[in-house]
Structure formats: C-alpha cells, structure tokens
C-alpha cells in the first residue's frame, strides 16, 4: 500500500469547488477525496450541473479551489509554476480551436511547446515523441491532413495525440465523447483505457457515458448534489452509490447487468 501511495499522480484532500464572484462564493461540490495512481483510467460522472467541468478546471489550475488541497505528483497544485505544470498535466477540452487550418502533425507538435526553445524549434527527440503519440492513437494515415478535413471522431483522436505528445503524468479530458456516435464513443473510451495501460499515465475524464465507464474504468468519481463518491465500479455498485444518481421514477440502476435501464 505504501509503495503505491508514494507515486500517486493526483490526490485531493477535502476539496471544495465552485466559483468566486465578487467575494461571494458559490460552492458546487464539497468533500472530494480522490487518489489516482499511474496507469489508472478514472471517469467523473454526474448529472448536468453537478460540477464535472468545474472540477476538471480546478484540477488543471484554470480556476482556484474554494477549500482543501490538490496534490499533483506530490506537489501542491497552487504552488506549482505554470511551466512545470505544463509538463505534468495535459488537457483535452471541448473549447473550439481558434484555427483548424493546422495539419494534424502541426497540432500534435504543439504539444511539445513546454519543451522547445524560445522560437519553438523541434528537436529529434521532440519529433520522436510526436511520431510515437501519432502511432499510439493510430492516426498515421491522416497525419498530413488539415484539421478541418477530419471527422469529429478523427479530430478527437488528434487532440488525444496532442495531449500524449505533451508527455505528462496526468491527462485530463472534458467530455471526450460528445458529438460522437455510439461506436466512436466506445472506441475513444477503449482507446483511453489502452493508453492508460500502455503509457502508464493517469487519465481522468468527465463523461455522461456511465454504462461504458462502468465497464472500462478502474475508478469512478460520482458527483451528486453536495456529495462525492469515489471508488472502483465494484465498490460503488455494492454500496448502492449509483441507485439515486438519476430520478428513480424514470431511470433505475440494475445491479445484475451493472447498467442503467429505463423503468
């Protein structure tokens, strides 16, 4: 247990998240205690407005936490320098890119920015990492295409490759499966599972795909109103944590098949 403890990638202690507006605090979720090890795939699940995006923004340092501590690679997030943070956490967001006129290679290459010199020159090592990332997500065939020529599914893979090229111990993805059909949803999540095992990186993502997440993830964080539950799918199911996630008169959790069903 101790040896596992020593290389925890992400750990939060009694974390409260929310927004500060003109000295007025609006708390979205409290008591979040999570610990993610290298190679683990973790999903953040919650109904709309439960604070998934707020949590991811807090963990990646975009907004400040209300209370509690966040540790990334054993360092306090609030005390980590931006350039060091860039080598520790990489992001895949739902934010639209300013330019889709970049080629796939160029976009993935931007992941190397924290490591390049003042003008962004790529070294041999950088190119190697870029090619490796492209190979890992299996997009070699489209690497010379422009991003505006890609389908949503392909583009999502390119964004994941960019995050891989950034070579961080933690990758955070905000709803990586929106706009995708069921096949591509499953494909992207399966890819994330494969990547977490092959690269030994910790991967944290927010999603509405709870049925898929239960099957693929090592751990889940369930955000309910002012309550956060963290554990393996088995633990969560046996403790009945999933039962009241949605209004029960419409959707119920079926323990036998480990999935949600419409009543």
């Amino acid at each position, binding site marked *: 247990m101790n040896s596992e403890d020593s290389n925890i990638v992400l750990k939060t202690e009694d974390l409260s998240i929310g927004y500060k507006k003109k000295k007025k605090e609006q708390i979205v979720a409290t008591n979040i205690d999570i610990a993610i090890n290298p190679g683990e795939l973790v999903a953040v699940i919650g109904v709309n407005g439960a604070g998934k995006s707020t949590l991811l923004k807090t963990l*990646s340092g975009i907004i400040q936490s209300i209370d509690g501590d966040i540790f990334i690679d054993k360092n306090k997030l609030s005390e980590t320098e931006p*350039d060091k943070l860039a080598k520790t956490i990489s992001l895949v967001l739902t934010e639209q890119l300013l330019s889709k006129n970049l080629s796939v290679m160029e976009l993935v290459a*931007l992941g190397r920015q924290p490591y390049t010199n*003042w003008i*962004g020159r790529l070294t041999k090592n950088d190119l190697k990492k870029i090619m490796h990332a492209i190979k890992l997500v299996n997009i070699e065939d489209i690497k010379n295409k422009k991003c505006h020529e890609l389908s949503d599914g392909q583009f999502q893979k390119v964004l994941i490759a960019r995050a891989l090229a950034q070579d961080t111990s933690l990758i955070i993805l905000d709803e990586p499966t929106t706009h995708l059909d069921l096949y591509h949803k499953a494909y992207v999540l399966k890819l994330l599972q494969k990547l977490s095992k092959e690269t030994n990186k910790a991967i944290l993502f927010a999603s509405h795909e709870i049925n898929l997440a239960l099957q693929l993830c090592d751990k889940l964080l369930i955000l309910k109103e002012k309550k956060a539950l963290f554990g393996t799918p088995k633990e969560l199911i046996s403790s009945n944590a999933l039962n009241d996630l949605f209004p029960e008169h419409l959707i119920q959790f079926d323990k036998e098949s480990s999935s949600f069903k419409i009543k």
Partner: protein
Amino acid sequence: MLNQKKYTIIIILLFLAVIIAALFNISLGSVNIPIEEVTAALFGLEVEKDTWRYIILNYRLPKAITAIITGSGLAVSGLLMQTLFRNPLAGPYVLGLSSGASLGVAIVFMGASVFGASFATILLSEWSLVIASSLGSLLVLFAVILASIRLRDTMAILIIGLMFASLTAAIVSVLAYFSPASQLQQYVFWSYGSLGDLSWDEVFILGLFWIVGILISIGSIKNLNSLLLGEQYARSLGTNIRKNRFMIIIATSVLAGSITAFAGPIAFVGLAVPHLIRQIIPSANHITLVPAVIFGGAILMLICDIIAQLPGSEFSLPINAITSLIGAPVVIWLLVRKRKFNF
C-alpha cells in the same frame, strides 16, 4: 514536415521578389533610370549621369526603404491582431489603430493653435510625432482589448474599432475647425499618406521603431502558435497569456504607430497581406507566416508605390488611395470566393 521545406523555398522566393520589386521601384518614376544603372549606383560604382545618382541615393532609395518598412510592419501587425483577436478581419486600420495614430498626429500638427504656441515648440520634432502617434494607437488598442475581454463576440470588437475610428475622426475635425489653414493643410497632406517625403534621418528613426516591433513579433512566434489552440490550451502549455498579450500589443502599437506617423494612415495592407500569404502558404504556423508576411507586405507596398508614381509622368497619387484601390477588391474577392476566411 514535408511542407515545411516547400514553405522555406517560397519564403526565399518572396525575399528575392522583394529585391526585384525594390529595384523596379527605384528605377521607375518621373524619370526612368535603367536597372543596371540603379544597381551600379547602389553598389557605389560609376553611373552614367550624376543626377541619376543624386535621385537614387537621396530620393528613391529612402522611399523604397520606407515602402519596405511600411508594408512589412503593417502586414505583421495585421497578422498579430488576427491571431490575438481570433478574428480574420482584424488589422491595424480596421481596429481603429490608424485612427488613434491620426489623432496623435493631429494633436501635434494642429494642437498648437488650440493649446498655445509654447506647446508647439515642444511637440514639433520627428520624435514627438512618432511618440504621439504610437500613444494614439496604443490608447485605441487598449480600449479595444478592454472591450474584447468583456465581450467575447468578435463582431462586437470590430464595431468598437469602427466607433473609435469615427470618434477620433470627430475630435480631429474639431481640432481642424480651430486651426489655421497652413496647419490644416499640413495635416491633410499627411493623411493622404506618403512614402517619399522622408529624409534619411527620418528613415533611420522609423527603422529603429520597426526593428523593435519586428523583434518583439519574432519573439512572440511560439506563443502565437499556442494561441491557435485557444486560450485555455495555451495556458495549459505554459504560455503566460497576460504577458504574451501585452507584448503583442506593444509590438503592434509601435509598428502601426510609427509607420502611421511618418507615412500617414495606410489602409488594407495589414488586413489583406496575411490573407494573400495564406493563399500561397496554406499554413497557420507563425514560424512560416511571420517571415512570409514581412516579405509579402514589403512587395505589395513597393508595387503600390510604383503605381502611385505613375511611371513616366510628372504626377504621383496619394499612396493611401492606391492601397485601398488594390486592397478592398482583394478582400472582397477573397470573401466571395472562399465564403469563409480560412484562418
């Protein structure tokens, strides 16, 4: 990365085109001087007629250098604004920077009659013109930035730029109303734009500001590229957004401000050149775009100046009219043909 090699070749070709355009620019005018004689004069060799040497070294060479500085500087500041504001229609003229600079210049030219004579003696030197003009464009740019932080809407930013343009135009006309004819005339001639009236000293001052602006732009290339992903991604890559934005503002104000001070408000170069270059180099990478836009701006300005001189005739047209005559149709053509700017 294969394309990168192709782009490097295009950039080298553009550089050669700058030299050729400059030679033609020096050769053509009210008196046409053969190209061989131009190169001879530039290399300090024997020239057929002494008057030619005099014309080239004291009149046409500084004018050609001014054209290169003006075109490249405006084009680069246009590129920086387009990336910074996430808006393909941004440029120093559209966003009201040139208007801000005009206001600065108008205060220098015509402020004397309004604010008193002692004020004029402090103000009337080349340096004060540049500084007033740069401050004017800086002022407008800060206002636009403030607005852009509050309004994420890119359309609103353009409209605010337009509003500042008409606001400064109104202040200028008030100043003009109270000014004596001679000072008013000075301002009006300045506002037509001109590349040819600069002495070597003035070219030197302009060049100094240009180097500062271009160096800051080159230093911002890496951060400009990260901005292509959007602000949140850029921050996650370790980019200091505030510092980066500040550097870009300084670079564009220094470039647009100093150029407008000496050459007058020149329209469309800053807006059109980055788009023309994107037609040749379909890349968003600023490592290729910045040098290509520098050379592209220089070429366009040299050509516009050749046209403005009406080779073989005694007359020359205001340069501002020529850039608009060429620039406006180009922008319209791009919009109609592509329906959408490829950014």
